[in-house]
């Protein structure tokens, strides 16, 4: 009876924390700026990088003005690659804590039942997706996706 209530508990966790992935800021070239044609980029489409200057007084926030502290301009056709470095920006950080609380029930000597409850992103921390990094887009500098909110999963396992 005591073992049935107090025994067989298990707690396990995974904590994941990392900085964001590198980002390239690009523009969609007009026909005069285009050097490779617009083909799917895993086949070798050139990422056209714009020119950048700092904009210290700009409006900056993560969700709507990710690149608010910089001003980007499309380079002239004579010189279509701008001065933004490759991978010079970083996406938002990621932090998630997963928790599992499990309980074993002994039924017979070689038969056990496990009830698992698993909580993913247990603290419901908002992890933002990647910002739109194409200056030709109307949505440039905005983040409109997130990683999943808290998810809970229950499972029943028979071990024999």
């Amino acid at each position, binding site marked *: 009876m005591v073992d049935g209530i107090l025994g067989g508990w*298990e707690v*396990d*966790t*995974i904590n*994941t924390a*990392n900085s964001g*992935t*590198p980002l390239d800021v690009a523009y969609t070239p007009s026909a005069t700026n285009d050097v490779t044609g617009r083909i799917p980029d*895993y086949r070798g489409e050139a990422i056209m990088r714009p020119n950048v200057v700092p904009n210290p007084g700009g409006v900056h926030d993560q969700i709507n003005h990710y690149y608010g502290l910089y001003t980007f301009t499309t380079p002239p056709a004579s010189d279509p690659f701008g001065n933004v470095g490759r991978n010079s920006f970083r996406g938002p950080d*990621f932090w998630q804590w*997963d*928790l*599992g609380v*499990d309980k074993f029930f002994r039924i017979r000597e070689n038969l056990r039942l496990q009830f698992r409850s*698993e*909580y*993913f992103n247990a603290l419901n921390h908002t992890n933002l*997706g*990647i910002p739109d990094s194409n200056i030709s887009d109307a949505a440039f500098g905005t983040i409109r*996706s997130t*990683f*999943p909110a808290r*998810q809970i*999963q*229950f*499972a*029943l*396992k*028979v*071990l*024999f």
Partner: protein
Amino acid sequence: MTCLRKATLFLTVCFLSLTALAYGQFESAEVLGTVRDTSGAIVAGATVTLTNLETGIQSQGASDASGDYDFFNVKVGRYSLAVEKTGFEKFTTKDVRVDVNARQRVDAALQVGAVTQSVEVTGAAATLDTDSSEHGEVVNTQQIVDLPLNGRNYSDLALLTTNVHRSIYAYAVPPREGAFNVNGMRSTYNSFLLDGVDNNAYSTSNQVVYLVQVPHQLRASPGIRFRLLRGQRAEHLRPVQRAQSLQPGCEVHQHYELCL
């Protein structure tokens, strides 16, 4: 909804697998080392025997002119290694664990004496991998069984290793299953091997087969490939061998789960 479908699939395949007695397993590892005497001089022509502690299968080799021996195609598991040479005491070590795709080094140091005498050594298996330039990490049975795993999606275990980042495409509509970025690469470039056999869908980054059983061991090698190994059936067929086996992994192949 998806969960429910998975559950059905799970049960169907479970019954099928109960009748299957063995699977082919192409994933293997290597055990190598150098035989020396106590002064550090090379011992050539020593007989080296590698025994699988779970199945009892033995393979035999000899050290070459530079004292090196090498066993290829070694299955994952626990092994003992014995080295014999006339004029030396027999050298044995019992705690050699061979992981997925490992190059496990076990160096032997022979002492002068009669072959009938034997020296048992613990800790002879090198813990630091100096024989491979591959950078990877092994996720073992205990972790696989215990850790919370969303949707029992085995590819999420790769996130336990360094330089692996969750991809936002894993949560897109429709989701790209098994999407994670390794060393900043696109998830399209991930490659999945199941028991050493290709398990890719080649459209996105998909793992194809839902696992019937909890994988026995898994190795993530960032930048190269993602390996996975199902539990070996040998123990399941040989209850005696199983009783000898101390690794908690042996229980694994016999549990099935239902996703609720």
